[in-house]
């Protein structure tokens, strides 16, 4: 079955900065804010009538290497001094970004988080295609989001391990079936872009695809 690309969004630093000051983001982590910036741009490009009809069934696949590990790090590091903090724990799980995004945009379809180091974005795109081909979902929002744990970059450099070039980023692409799920088809999805970054940045395949769609 043919899978198609229907919309895209890339997190811009300006929209990230604007969202971070909003009251409803007071409990949001860095990844959550980046993810909402990317999804917000994607949603903004879709017709309202289509959103009204389809938003509530939209499936989401998040691809992330580090996930909310930065929050996990702060939860664990703070245990001896501040005790166990509910805010940090609820946002420390790998799928907390997914939970925040589905809640924020009222997406009630299937939702899952996949993780495979720098190939996380590719894996997310392929998983979304599987969901569409196997009929589990009609259209899937694929979200690549990542940010390295604070302090890890320097530690990796000390050990001559390559770390991510970007500290945080996110992009989103909407995939659908052969009929485009009622939206104009931007391109056929023939496979995820290959990624070359060596370590720990899982958003890149989705970013590359979103960038290619933007330029076409």
């Amino acid at each position, binding site marked *: 079955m043919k899978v198609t690309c229907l919309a895209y969004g890339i997190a811009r630093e300006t929209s990230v900065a604007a969202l971070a000051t909003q009251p409803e983001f007071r409990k949001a982590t860095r990844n959550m804010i980046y993810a909402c910036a990317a999804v917000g741009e994607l949603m903004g490009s879709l017709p309202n009538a289509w959103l009204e009809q389809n938003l509530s069934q939209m499936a989401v696949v998040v691809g992330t290497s580090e996930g909310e590990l930065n929050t996990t790090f702060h939860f664990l590091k703070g245990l001896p001094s501040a005790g*166990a903090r509910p805010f940090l724990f609820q946002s*420390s799980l790998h799928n907390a970004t997914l939970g925040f995004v589905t809640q924020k945009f009222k997406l009630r379809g299937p939702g899952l988080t996949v993780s495979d180091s720098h190939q996380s974005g590719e894996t997310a795109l392929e998983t979304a295609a599987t969901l569409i081909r196997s009929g589990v979902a009609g259209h899937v929002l694929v979200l690549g989001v990542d940010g390295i744990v604070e302090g890890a970059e320097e530690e990796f450099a000390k050990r001559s391990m390559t770390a991510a070039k970007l500290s945080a980023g996110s992009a989103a692409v909407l995939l659908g079936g052969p009929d485009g799920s009622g939206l104009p088809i931007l391109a056929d999805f023939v496979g995820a872009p290959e990624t070359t970054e060596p370590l720990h940045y899982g958003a890149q395949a989705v970013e590359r695809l979103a960038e290619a769609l933007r330029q076409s």
Partner: protein
Amino acid sequence: MSKLTENSQPVAITGLGAVSKAGIGALPLWEATLLGASLASEGLLSLSEGQRHSLVTDLKQRGFDGAESLSLFEALTLHSIVQAMTAAGWDQLTSDDGLVLGTTTGNILLWEGDVIRSGETGNTDGVFANYQSLAEAFKALRGLLKFSGPSLLVATACSSSTQAMGLGASWIREGKVKRCLVGGAEVLSRLTVEGFRCLQLLSPVPSTPFDQNRKGINLSEGSAFFCLEPKRSSRAVAYLSGFGMSSDAYHLTAPHPEGQGCFESMKGALESAGISPSEVTAIHAHGTGSTANDLTEGLAVQRLFGTENAPWVFSTKGVHGHALGASGALESVLSVSALQKGLVLCTAGLTQADSRLSLRHATQTFSTPVTHVLKNSLGFGGANASLLLSHPNSLSEEGT
């Protein structure tokens, strides 16, 4: 007896394996569940020294020479996989096979102690040496299995391994893989124990799912894996016949109060199998023993199935605890046993049912033909997943 339709393309389960506080293997878990006594100690269930030692020596006997250097997460995962492959008669994995693993914390035990210590001493040296990336744990595992075929790690909280099982079945249906290993593993960690405790979700006494006076969750650790094959097989112990997922879009830790998401995922699983609600024999509930979860899940069940002649509802977490990301797979092992043995289970710990619910709980385990069992998982982040597991005789004969 209902017959699954051709279009639903059920996938055969030809082998399974499990490790839990009850012991190594699916049988000890089943026997402990039938006995119905909680295996929790002060509200938690971690493997004993002896059990960990057995895991390692057993793996060594099966040819994994470096087994003593494996992390608990790796040993748990590997052992369940080896058990499942042995049961299914799979000699080795090829690049045509697939591997889908569900976990929430992976190798967290290699990392969290260093991070907590850095919080005490202010010294972060060494904190990143055993970097806790789920992908690193998965890479190690693929190396141990010498596996290079399609693989996927799913990390969607307590729905992780349930989703992993459903996705593996989807891979077979779309022809991406010929056979697939699916399951999950979870270790008990400071992260989850302290985290659940600060959310006031832990019970210091044995958990009592669906009870009026339930006090919360008992956290546990364990693993379970299944061998999935596309063809109808005389070796099939059960079929994975339906899969549904949904998001609550409600709250990061609290479930939707009316169970909207759980309702949708159960409905999705039944629809994908082409099965009507009245054909389901029993629901193997997520039933954690937390006030919110059991109420939410119960309301969703009542909405989808009604209260007259509804399926039986049981939770087994009162015995083996809540193994988080591994719970869906671990409990599916018990669902399969219930199908095979023709038994509907009672809920361990349940004495007085929640008065806000009218669910059909068995007062004791009893024999009856079990055709379809619906297995639910409700995860943090509002992630729900449901699987329909079916008896081999529920398949029609055409197309075999």
